[in-house]
């Protein structure tokens, strides 16, 4: 078996509140994410999901237990840059993560800092922009791009670092439906090319596209499974203050009204099949 991309072993993260009390933002989390997985993390505001994601590229280190990225412990400062090169992060606000005045220079920022030779940087930048379908905008000013395009530039910056894992913290929260679709299409395609994708989202229609869904609540893992395994627990998810995909909720409500529907239903197609038999 290959080395896990991410491995958490009884990991906790605590901080002190204003009264000096110890608060667990994350509590005793054990988790493995394998290379090539597409994982969605869902949970309410304050559940700890962003805190969790920040451990994956050493923006935070565990206060108890361990976090390993490709077998490297994140609490060893010697591993810091190696880990950050392998795990790139995309944040919610597209305007907060663009540093250069021209798109291609922004994408080149990472490899330049790694000391990659100029010829290779040029190659990496043009490859990265092609993979996120932004080649036509290489010479543009980032401020003229839409939110979805800016997020794709941020993703290109990570690709230019040749990172193996991308962690996205609500990358579509500020985008319109078209921008959201652009970003999700790009993420799916990169995952198919072998990149490990971890996305934090409040949009259930995005979470169902992942191969695995992890539900965080009060700093602990409540559920961990395929979208089908997770989203058929409609009542539990609603109880936790989360949404469920509309077809899944409809199936539960119809069964409750006495309409027998077969199978686990999470998509409109499955609902259609069950109803139109």
């Amino acid at each position, binding site marked *: 078996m290959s080395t896990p991309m991410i491995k958490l072993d009884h990991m906790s993260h605590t901080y002190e509140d*204003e009264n000096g009390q110890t608060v667990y933002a994350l509590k005793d989390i054990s988790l493995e994410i394998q290379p090539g997985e597409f994982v969605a993390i869902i*949970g*309410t*505001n*304050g*559940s700890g999901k962003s805190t969790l994601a920040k451990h994956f590229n050493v923006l935070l280190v565990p206060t108890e237990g361990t976090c390993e990225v490709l077998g490297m412990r994140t609490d060893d400062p010697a591993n810091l840059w190696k880990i950050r090169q392998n795990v790139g992060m995309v944040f*919610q606000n597209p305007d907060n993560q663009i540093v250069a005045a021209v798109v291609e220079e922004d994408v080149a920022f990472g490899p330049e800092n790694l000391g990659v030779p100029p010829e290779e940087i040029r190659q990496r930048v043009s490859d990265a922009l092609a993979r996120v379908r932004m080649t036509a905008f290489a010479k543009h000013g980032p401020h003229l791009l*839409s*939110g*979805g395009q800016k997020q794709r530039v941020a993703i290109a910056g990570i690709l230019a670092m040749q990172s193996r894992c991308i962690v996205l913290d*609500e990358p579509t*929260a*500020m*985008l*319109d*439906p*078209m*921008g959201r679709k652009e970003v999700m299409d790009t993420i799916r395609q990169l995952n198919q090319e072998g990149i490990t994708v971890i996305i934090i989202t*409040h949009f259930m*229609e995005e979470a169902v596209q992942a191969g695995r869904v992890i539900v965080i609540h009060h700093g602990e893992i409540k559920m961990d499974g395929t979208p089908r395994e997770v989203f058929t627990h409609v009542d539990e998810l609603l109880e936790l*203050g*989360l*949404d469920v*995909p*509309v*077809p899944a*909720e*409809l199936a539960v*409500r*119809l069964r409750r*009204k*006495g*309409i*027998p529907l077969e199978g686990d239903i999470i998509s*409109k*197609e499955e*609902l*259609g099949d069950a*109803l*139109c038999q």
Partner: protein
Amino acid sequence: MSIKLEHVTHTYGLGSPFEKTALHDVSLEIESGEFVGIIGHTGSGKSTLVQLLNGLLQPTQGTVTVDGMDISQKTKEAMQMRHKVGMVFQYPEYQLFEETIAKDIAFGPRNFGLSDDEIEDRVKEAMEFVGLDYKTYADRSPFRLSGGQMRRVAIAGVIAIHPQYLILDEPSAGLDPAGRREIFAEIQRWHREKNITVILVSHNMDDISRMASRLIVLSQGQICIDGEPLAVFATEQETLHRAGVSVPPVTEVLQYLKGRGLPLQDRVHTVEEAADSIYQCIRGKGHA
């Protein structure tokens, strides 16, 4: 009583090489007491429109009037009128700046020259409205709150100026589903109890369809749809698609099922109503 736009055009950078017309010849009247949803993709002119509604931008051509008063005038009366229009920007929590929550909420009323007693009443009322206990939170720093709570403080700051017209730009972005439901329940209550006019700008069709009595869709700086939301979703799919916006998820599922031959009623607001609609359709056919 209304906000009225007459043949309003707004051009940024007029006369410069970067001249761009964001709104083109828009006429619109929003009556007092309405709950209006405004939707459109990035660059459609939404933000320009709402900034014109409360006088942050001036029309290049045409006029914007609030209760009959042209708010582009520099007169005292026009300024007073602009106070009637409250605006909650995107991510309003980034605009908090005072050292205590009570002071931050008091900023608006204080600038309007109210007495200390009146200000305190306004702050208490606004905090109660957004569900923050006055005793517990008044003297705390707003910067120690969670994102959802900070947003409540920011909304309370606008509520405290007692706007007659409340404009909200994406008030639920980045909030979890429970937080979204709470904020909207508060806004709906405010709309009902105080009869204020709400103008909600959102990417989320679901929110608009559940709350708004009128839907305005902007595309390329013009209004391309103006109607009752459920009627629009049922009949204007083509125009919506061209404007780059989509019907709410629940409508999408019902329209899909209809396309597969289930003769069901697809004008519903909620998942609950959708389940009823499917149930009636199936039972009607004598299936179950």
